[in-house]
């Protein structure tokens, strides 16, 4: 008796446990090498952005040691006025990360609002939102940011204003994708079922539709961060960045204008760009893993798998010949 109960218990438990595990692991990105490398690089840079400025001195402190190449005293050398590049990169990383995350959040919220809400409500609202999104998409972003940035006086050009302007020019692409995904989701049977069973509109939107959009939005959030960091670096490089903030773009601006290039002071402008490139690369790697959740076709090697079913090149050739006959 006892044993048989134990067996049925086991048999009854096992399938549910297995199913739960597999559904959870399906939501998480597969632990590929790409994801791990991406997470490690991004984690180190983010950690460095948070902790770094606390460990180093004042980035603006000048010394008589101008244009010193990297050495034991200055790990990444010094600038024209003897400022320590390593210290500057630490502060710049923090500034760029703050801009990146603020813009990422703002752009994601904007794209969710215009993309998801419009598509869900449908009708004239959807048409209006879609038109607005498409128009915003074809207005070139950076020139707009440059022009707006120049009209705002230097003392009012704060971090938040630059972040808002960057967000305004970067949400449209994501909104268009979210709209098309939402359009296909809202006509699914399970959404109709929940609507028929009397769920409130906000509940259908938040509980039924939004969870299915999370992978797409996560990937868009990551892209928005890269876009923002690149955009801000470009603005700062032109001298139009936020006042009172110190970003990697600011370092590049100073390096270019203080003739680091003609002096051959590569240690001044190579590290800031490298940090941006590495961070962007890490985020792209994370995005690859998210892509593999969204698009299962990318996950398993379909074509390679088909070839691996055992047909050798000779067999394929022979089959082709037979077909010709």
């Amino acid at each position, binding site marked *: 008796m006892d044993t048989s109960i134990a067996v049925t218990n086991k048999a009854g438990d096992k399938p549910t446990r297995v199913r739960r595990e597999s559904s959870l692991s399906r939501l998480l990105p597969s632990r590929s090498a790409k994801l791990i490398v991406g997470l490690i690089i991004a984690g180190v840079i983010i950690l460095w952005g948070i902790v770094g400025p606390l460990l180093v001195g004042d980035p603006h402190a000048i010394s008589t040691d101008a244009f010193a190449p990297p050495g034991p005293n200055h790990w990444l050398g010094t600038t024209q006025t003897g400022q320590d590049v390593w210290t500057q990169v630490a502060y710049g990383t923090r500034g760029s990360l703050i801009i990146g995350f603020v813009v990422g959040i703002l752009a994601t919220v904007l794209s969710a609002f215009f993309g998801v809400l419009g598509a869900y409500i449908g009708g004239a609202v959807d048409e209006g939102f879609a038109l607005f999104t498409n*128009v915003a998409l074809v207005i070139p972003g950076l020139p707009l940011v440059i022009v707006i940035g120049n009209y705002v006086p230097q003392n009012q050009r704060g971090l938040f204003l630059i972040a808002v302007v960057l967000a305004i020019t970067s949400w449209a692409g994501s909104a268009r994708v979210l709209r098309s995904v939402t359009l296909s989701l809202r006509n699914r049977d399970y959404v109709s079922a929940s609507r028929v069973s009397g769920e409130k509109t906000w509940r259908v939107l938040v509980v039924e539709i939004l969870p299915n959009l999370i992978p797409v939005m996560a990937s868009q959030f990551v892209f928005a961060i890269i876009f923002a960091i690149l955009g801000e670096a470009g603005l700062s490089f032109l001298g139009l960045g936020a006042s009172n903030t110190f970003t990697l773009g600011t370092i590049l601006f100073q390096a270019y204008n203080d003739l680091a290039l003609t002096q051959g002071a590569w240690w001044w402008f190579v590290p800031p760009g490298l940090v941006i490139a590495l961070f962007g690369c890490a985020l792209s790697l994370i995005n690859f893993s998210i892509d593999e959740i969204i698009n299962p076709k990318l996950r398993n090697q379909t*074509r390679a798998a088909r070839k691996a079913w055992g047909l050798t090149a000779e067999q394929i050739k022979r089959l082709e010949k037979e077909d010709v006959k």
Partner: protein
Amino acid sequence: MRFYLQKIAFYVVALWAAVTLNFLIPRLMPGNPVDIMISKMAAAGQPITAGTRHALAIELGGSSGSILQQYGDYIVNLLHGNLGISLTNYPEQVTTVIGQALPWTIALVGLATVISFILGIGLGMLAGWKRGSWLDNLIPVTTMFQAVPYFWLALILVLVLTRVVPIFPFAGGYDVTSTTPGFSLSFIGSAIYYGFLPALTIVISSIGGWMLGMRNMMVSTLSEDYIVTAEAKGLNPRRVRMTYAARNAVLPSLSGFAISLGFVVAGSIVTEQVFSYPGIGQLLFTAVSNDDYALMQGVFLVISLSVLAANLVVDVLYGLIDPRTRARS
């Protein structure tokens, strides 16, 4: 027909939005051109009188009257091709100044983008076709180039190819000392030689996106049933790759081409600055650093219009290539 009418309606709205945005930005922003100029003059120690302010207001094109009246004047001026007078190149019209710079940017950015697109699509197709090959494993490396700031890559290229190994010129659009602009062989050769590094910058930093997009679409397309059918029929693999897979996989990239143009134009603005290339980006920067508001607005308008025009071309082409878009709408 309805497809084209819808498209035309969209472009009319987009055109209106770009033109109106150009009108509204200076009026909505906290900074006022006249105030900025006056504070600059005061800082430079020049005497400021009430007349100065009035003169500046007229010079900077701030027409009096209600905002609607100003808007009307602005549209009428625009239709006459009158964008005002550039302060930096004083008696010159903004349209003339832009007209001199525009061909440089269109040639540079246009050619570089097309080269990057074709190369990226081709390589992406091969990477998707042979998953796990060395080309496929190269894709993450090229996306790293995509995350590189355009202008930083330009700085590195300048450092390496003009300082360390001096094979390319440092700055400019053509050899000013030995050639003059015109349809001569030496001028065109010189322009290509000078444009090589800026173009290389654009190609390197934008090719990764095309490769990745095309590769992913290729992989998705290859698992479609009609590919299995084509293979089962024993079609030549090259035919399956080109006619069955690539042709369908390229469609999203093609529509992405239009969207990315704005991004490429933006990236090239900063790149032109690094190379002192005599194009639109350099002009915009000159306008911005000299508070030349008429020129700045003009450049923004021209950039918006060019991006719109490029979008229109891609849209029409897309309608021709993919009949479904015409049928569905």
